[in-house]
C-alpha cells in the first residue's frame, strides 16, 4: 500500500481542512513510526546534545535506545510565530498538463493548511500572507483552531493575480512579517526582475528565519513535450513557438541554472531552499523537508 497520499487523490477532496488534517495526521503517524523520532512536529522538544548543555536535560531512555544523546526540551518556553507567505502570481496557477491535479497555488494552499495545522497543534501563532500584483491577502498571526479555520477561509479566497508585487509594493508588508519566528515563502521564483529575491532578502533578519519552498510541477521539471508547441508565459502572455523535443535540453539547462541561481541567491542570506514537486505526495514532501531540516539543525 502506498504510504504517501497521492496529490491527485487529494485534489478530488474539495474540503481544505479535511485534506490538511488528513495529510498532517498521516505525516505525524509516519513520523511516529519512523526512525526520525524527535525531529517531527515536536522537533523543538528534542535536540542533539551540544557541549555546554545541562546533563540533566539528556533523555537517558532515548540514549539507551539510540545510543545517542538527546536533550529534552520539554516545552518551548515561548511560542514562535509562523508566517506563511505565498506567491499568488499567474505563474503559480500552472499545473502539469496531464496531471489533472492541483496547480502550484492549489498545492501551496494545501501545504500551508497542513503546516499551519501542525504548527497550530504545537501552539505556534500562524499567519498568512498571499501576495499578488500590488496587493496582499492577509490573515494576521493567531492561535487556536478557530484561527486556523479563519486562515483556511482566507486561503480559499486567494486567487492568482498577474505578478508578484514590485519591490516598493512588497516592502510595505515586511514589518508585519519581521517578527521572532519563521516565515515560509512558497513560490516558484519566476519573477519579472528580482522582486522575489529582494523581498525574501529583506525579510531574512536576525530574528526571522526564512524558509523558501520552491514549487515545481512535473512538466516544468521533466519538460515532456514534443513537436511544435507554442509555450505561453503565464504572467506575460508571451508566446514562443519551438520544437519542444529539440528545445528540451536547452530548457533543462536554463532551468537548472535558474534553480541554482535561486539557491545561491538565497544562500547568501542563509535562507534554506526546499524544492517541492507538486505532483509528488505532499506528506512525502513534508517528510523530506523535515528530514533535510533536521540535518541542518544537527
Amino acid at each position, binding site marked *: 500500500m502506498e504510504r504517501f497520499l497521492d496529490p491527485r487523490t487529494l485534489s478530488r477532496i474539495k474540503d481544505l481542512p479535511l485534506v490538511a488534517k488528513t495529510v498532517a495526521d498521516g505525516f505525524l503517524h509516519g513520523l511516529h513510526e519512523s526512525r526520525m523520532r524527535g525531529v517531527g512536529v515536536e522537533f523543538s522538544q528534542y535536540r542533539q546534545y551540544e557541549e555546554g548543555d545541562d546533563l540533566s536535560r539528556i533523555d537517558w531512555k532515548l540514549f539507551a535506545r539510540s545510543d545517542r544523546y538527546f536533550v529534552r526540551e520539554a516545552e518551548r518556553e515561548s511560542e514562535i510565530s509562523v508566517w506563511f507567505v505565498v506567491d499568488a502570481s499567474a505563474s503559480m496557477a500552472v499545473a502539469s*498538463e496531464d496531471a489533472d491535479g492541483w496547480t502550484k497555488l492549489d498545492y501551496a494552499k494545501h501545504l500551508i493548511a497542513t503546516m499551519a495545522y501542525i504548527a497550530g497543534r504545537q501552539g505556534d501563532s500562524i499567519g498568512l500572507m498571499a501576495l499578488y500584483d500590488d496587493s496582499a491577502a492577509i490573515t494576521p498571526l493567531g492561535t487556536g483552531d478557530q484561527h486556523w479555520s479563519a486562515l483556511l477561509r482566507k486561503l480559499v479566497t486567494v486567487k492568482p493575480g498577474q505578478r508578484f508585487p514590485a519591490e516598493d509594493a512588497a516592502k510595505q508588508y515586511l514589518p508585519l512579517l519581521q517578527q521572532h519566528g519563521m516565515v515560509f515563502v512558497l513560490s516558484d521564483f519566476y519573477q519579472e526582475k528580482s522582486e522575489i529575491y529582494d523581498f525574501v532578502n529583506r525579510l531574512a533578519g536576525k530574528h526571522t528565519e526564512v524558509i523558501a519552498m520552491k514549487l515545481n510541477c512535473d512538466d516544468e521539471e521533466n519538460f515532456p513535450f514534443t513537436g511544435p508547441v507554442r509555450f505561453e508565459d503565464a504572467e506575460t502572455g508571451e508566446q514562443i513557438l519551438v520544437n519542444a523535443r529539440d528545445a528540451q535540453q536547452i*530548457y533543462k539547462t536554463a532551468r537548472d541554472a535558474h534553480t541554482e541561481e535561486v539557491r545561491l541567491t538565497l544562500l547568501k542570506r542563509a535562507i534554506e531552499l526546499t524544492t517541492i514537486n507538486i505532483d509528488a505526495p505532499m506528506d512525502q514532501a513534508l517528510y523530506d523537508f523535515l528530514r533535510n531540516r533536521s540535518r541542518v539543525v544537527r
Partner: protein
Amino acid sequence: MIYSSGTFTFLNAVGLVGLLTLLIPILIHLFNRSKGRRVVLGSVEFLRTAAMQRVTEIRLKQYLLLAFRLGIFTLATFILAEFAGNIAGDEDRESVFVTPMWAQSATDTDWQTLEENHPDAVVHRIEGDDTAWAHIHQTLTEREHSGTIHIYASATAGEIGSSWPEFAQPVTWHFSNTSASAMDSEQSYNILLVSNPEQLSILNNLQTAFDRLNQHRAIDYTVTVTAPNALQNQTGTLFDWLIWLPETSELPDLSGFGIPPKKALFFARGSRPTDETVTLPDYPFSRFHISEIGDIQSGHAAWITGSGTPALVTFVSNGAMWHQAGFNLGAGSSDLLAKPEFPIILLSLLQETEGKLDRALTDPVYRDTAASPDGAGYSHPLSDLSAWLVLLIALLWVGERILSERQSRDR
C-alpha cells in the same frame, strides 16, 4: 510559333469548383497541431534561446507543407478542368481556324501573313475529321466566345466536312488563292429553278443555301425561278443546272434550255423507284458520309446523311443524257434543305467535285505532327501538359509526405 498565342483557359471550367478544395489544406494549416498546440508555462525565459534557433525552421516547414498541399489540390483541379493553354483564349479575342487543306497548301509566307494579321489570336488547326466544326462550334459556344472567328480554308467543296455550323460569333472567311484559282472555272452558275408558287418556303431555303455558298465559297450564281407552265419562256437561255421542285412523274423535255448532260437535279418529295443501280462510291455524297439504307437493287433504297436526314430518295439516269436525283427536301426543320450540311451537299452536286474531292482530301498532311488527343477535330499541344501536371503532383506529394513524416517524428 503558331500555337503559342492565347492565354490559359480551361476546357471544363466547372471543374474549377474543385479549387474549393484548397480550403482543406488551409484549414489544416490553421487548426493542425503542427502549428503548435498551446501550453502555458510558468516562464518561457528558459526557452528563449531555443525559440530563436527553431521558430524560423518550424514556420518554414509549416508554410512549405501548406504550399505543397495547395499545389497538389490546385494541380489536381487544373487537370480536372482540362487545363489547356492554347485553346480559345479570352472571350473577346480573335480565334483563327485553319483547315487541313489550307494548312497543306499554305506556304511559309501564308503562315507568316496569318500571324501578322492576327498577332494576338489563338490559332487552331483543324484536323480533318468530319465532326471538327461541330466540336469547335460547341467549344466556342460553351466558352461564350464573342471574338471574331477567322477561318482559313481552301475553296474546295467539302473540305470542311458535311457539317456547316452556325456560329453565333462573327466569322470571316479567308480562302487560299491556290484553291480558289483551281476552282475559278466553276465559280459561276446559271441555274434555272422550276417551282410552284406554294413552294416558297423551299425556295427560301434554297436561297439561303446559295447565299451561304456565295458568302463562304465565293460561288457566283444566277437563279432564274419559273413556274412549270412558264417553262417555255426560258427556251433559248443556257443554264448550267436545272433544279426541278414540283412533284411530277417525269421531267419535261429540256432540250431547248442548253442544259448539259447530267445537270438536272430533280428535287422531289416522297419515295420514288430508281431506274438504275447506282453505288454510293460513285456519287459525290460519299464525301459527306451519306450512307445507303434499304436495298437499292430492288429500287427501294434511300440515302441518309450522317445526321440521319433522308437525302436522295430517287435517282433516275436517263441514259447518257440525264441524271435525275430526287431529294426529300421539304420545308420542315428536319428536312434536308434545312440542315446545315445542305449547302455543301448542294455545292458538291453543282461542282460535281467527286473526283476532285477525293484527290484533294486524301490523307492531309499537317505541319504539326502532334496527334490529336481525342480526335475531336483540333489539336491542343498543351493537353500534353496534363502528364507534366500529374508528374508535378507526384513530386509535390512526395515532398508533402517527407515533411509530414518529419513533423510526425518530431512530435
